[in-house]
């Protein structure tokens, strides 16, 4: 069993779920534009599915890439464990679909306690199926993390080696001992598996608490405690999808530029920062909960700011240095990888502004928030995944896409994508709340523009898929000859 097969299994499943959730999302925006009629109950059921579906789609695709890269470094990594984790993911996805499609569950994937149990318009079993589905996804994720974390710790000699602590503090002794630090992509794998394991544990704790309450409603949960755990799990899991896909920069861009992305002291230290900030930046989700301990609000703002430092000073800065004056040829693969870095910066800027407490008073739970994370996922994580796919296809086929194909894809996915995203930001800045089945003005007008933008994005994506199939066929022919 090869690592490549694991990668494609994870990645193609992730991309297929993504495509379905994209269609669901377009339906939601068209409904908010009053172009099609979806009743509020169905709207919130689809929104619940869209939310968790997109995160799981991006996670699956990113975990596939990362698992493959770890296997290249550590051949002992057993594919059977990866398939077992994949099985848990799929079982979770099926359970979530059952809860939403026949069950009509509609408490969204944030499911803030006690909402799933109060005023529900769906049967109780649907809540159970939703909670069990989420738990299965978390078990799959934790299994993946445990396998990769264990392999990295064994390969690099414990946590000091995995995080390159000796390398940072005593480079001379480190070099004299003939040791080399882990390559950049392994830092991504280390942080995803380390933080991911903690995130998964937290997700299972809150999930278990909710399941217990579902079985026996006399067992009550503290809402503030539940909110903290829900966002620690939810924010970190969503945030980690970027760090799963970031391997695309570390491994994909060097293939395009014929340059090397080395491990350096700033890179190692930057990942230590990410390790910490991913876990504590979630405090910004509770800025408008004044009952929260005040020191957590202060830490939330400064850590949200500092979370950007490793990104803009090391990873993306390093990516730009790699491309700058390298003579790199623009192909779909390199274009996606580079555009993904731009999307990450823009989505991150929107997040940092919203993580500023006095600004959050105006933007909290407005459409600005989905504006930020759609930028991050659609023009960041997804592009890193597609970039990785296309760099591989182009290399194997020994061919690149024509200029018209690149333009068509770019206009659809970047032009249409920008229109789609700007409608969120404009509506958010005008105070339109998020998660409204029926929006106040100018929400419906902007939702119309968003639908047009999303359809253009879909058209660009279809061109890209057709081109991907062409390159895949070409690479098979190349392999035969």
């Amino acid at each position, binding site marked *: 069993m090869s690592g490549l097969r694991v990668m494609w299994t994870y990645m193609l499943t992730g991309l297929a779920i993504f495509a379905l959730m994209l269609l669901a999302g377009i339906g939601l925006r068209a409904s908010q534009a009053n172009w099609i009629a979806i009743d509020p109950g169905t709207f919130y059921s689809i929104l619940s599915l869209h939310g968790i579906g997109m995160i799981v789609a991006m996670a699956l695709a990113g975990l596939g890439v990362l698992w493959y890269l770890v296997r290249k470094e550590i051949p002992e990594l057993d594919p059977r464990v990866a398939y077992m984790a994949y099985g848990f993911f799929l079982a979770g996805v099926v359970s979530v679909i059952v809860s939403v499609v026949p069950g009509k569950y509609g408490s969204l994937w944030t499911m803030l306690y006690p909402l799933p149990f109060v005023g529900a318009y769906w049967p109780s079993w649907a809540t159970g199926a939703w909670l069990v589905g989420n738990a299965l996804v978390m078990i799959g994720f934790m299994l993946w993390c445990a396998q990769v974390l264990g392999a990295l710790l064994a390969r690099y000699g414990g946590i000091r080696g995995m995080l390159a602590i000796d390398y940072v503090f005593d480079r001379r002794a480190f070099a004299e001992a003939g040791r080399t630090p882990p390559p950049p992509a392994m830092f991504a794998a280390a942080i995803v598996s380390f933080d991911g394991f903690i995130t998964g544990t937290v997700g299972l704790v809150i999930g278990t608490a909710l399941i217990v309450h579902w079985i026996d409603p006399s067992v009550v949960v503290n809402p*503030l405690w539940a909110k903290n755990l829900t966002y620690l799990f939810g924010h970190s899991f969503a945030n980690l999808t970027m760090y799963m896909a970031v391997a695309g920069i570390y491994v994909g861009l060097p293939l395009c530029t014929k340059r090397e992305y080395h491990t350096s002291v700033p890179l190692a230290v930057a990942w230590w920062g990410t390790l910490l900030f991913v876990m504590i930046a979630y405090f910004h989700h509770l800025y408008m909960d004044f009952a929260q301990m005040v020191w957590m609000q202060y830490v939330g703002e400064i850590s949200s700011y500092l979370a950007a430092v490793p990104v803009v000073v090391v990873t993306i800065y390093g990516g730009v240095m790699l491309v700058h004056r390298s003579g790199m040829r623009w192909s779909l693969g390199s274009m996606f990888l580079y555009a993904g870095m731009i999307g990450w910066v823009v989505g991150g800027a929107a997040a940092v*502004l919203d993580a500023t407490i006095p600004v959050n008073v105006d933007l909290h739970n407005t459409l600005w928030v989905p504006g930020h994370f759609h930028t991050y996922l659609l023009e960041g994580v997804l592009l890193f995944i597609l970039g990785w796919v296309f760099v591989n296809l182009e290399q194997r086929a020994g061919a690149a896409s024509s200029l018209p194909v690149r333009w068509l894809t770019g206009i659809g996915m970047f032009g249409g994508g920008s229109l789609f995203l700007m409608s969120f930001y404009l509506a958010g800045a005008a105070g339109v709340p998020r998660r409204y089945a029926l929006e106040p003005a100018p929400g419906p007008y902007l939702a119309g523009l968003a639908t047009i933008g999303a359809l253009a994005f879909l058209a660009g994506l279809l061109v890209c898929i057709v081109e991907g199939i062409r390159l895949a066929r070409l690479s098979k022919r190349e392999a035969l000859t």
Partner: protein
Amino acid sequence: MGNVGPIFWIFCAIAVLAISSMVLLGNYRNREALPQDVVTSSGYAIRRYWFWAVIAGSIAAFFLTIPSFPYLSAAANADAIHFPVVAQQYGFAAPPVVPLNRDVIFDVSSKDVNHGFGIYAPNGAMMSQVQAMPGYVNHLRVRFTVPGRYLIRCLEYCGIAHAAMQGGFDVR
């Protein structure tokens, strides 16, 4: 709904700056390619300044925004008038009239699930907000300087009629 605030334009400026500079730096195709070590040696030198600029900017923004944090102002205001607000699927029990040009503190709680208490000014702009959580009371200090009808919207997803959960009060 109100007009977009300065934050939107600040965001647009950052986005345009980031996109244009990254496109310019990345698309040097027409000029002669340089060896990697030449690019990295000047890149590392610039990065030192960039690092300290980002750190200094973050710390400065943090300290500059602290005076505008909404958390301690309620406790510091002994003269303010308190108004209880109770949220419940799908409406608000709020005072019908709130005085003009005086500090008021809304003591916001919820009877069932998490809700949001968002205040929209007569011109449609979002003015302030706080969460309404069962079992807790959040104190939100506001001073109204413009008379008129203010709208309350729920700003935390609370169920099927979330979008219809509204209230209001007059300021005079």
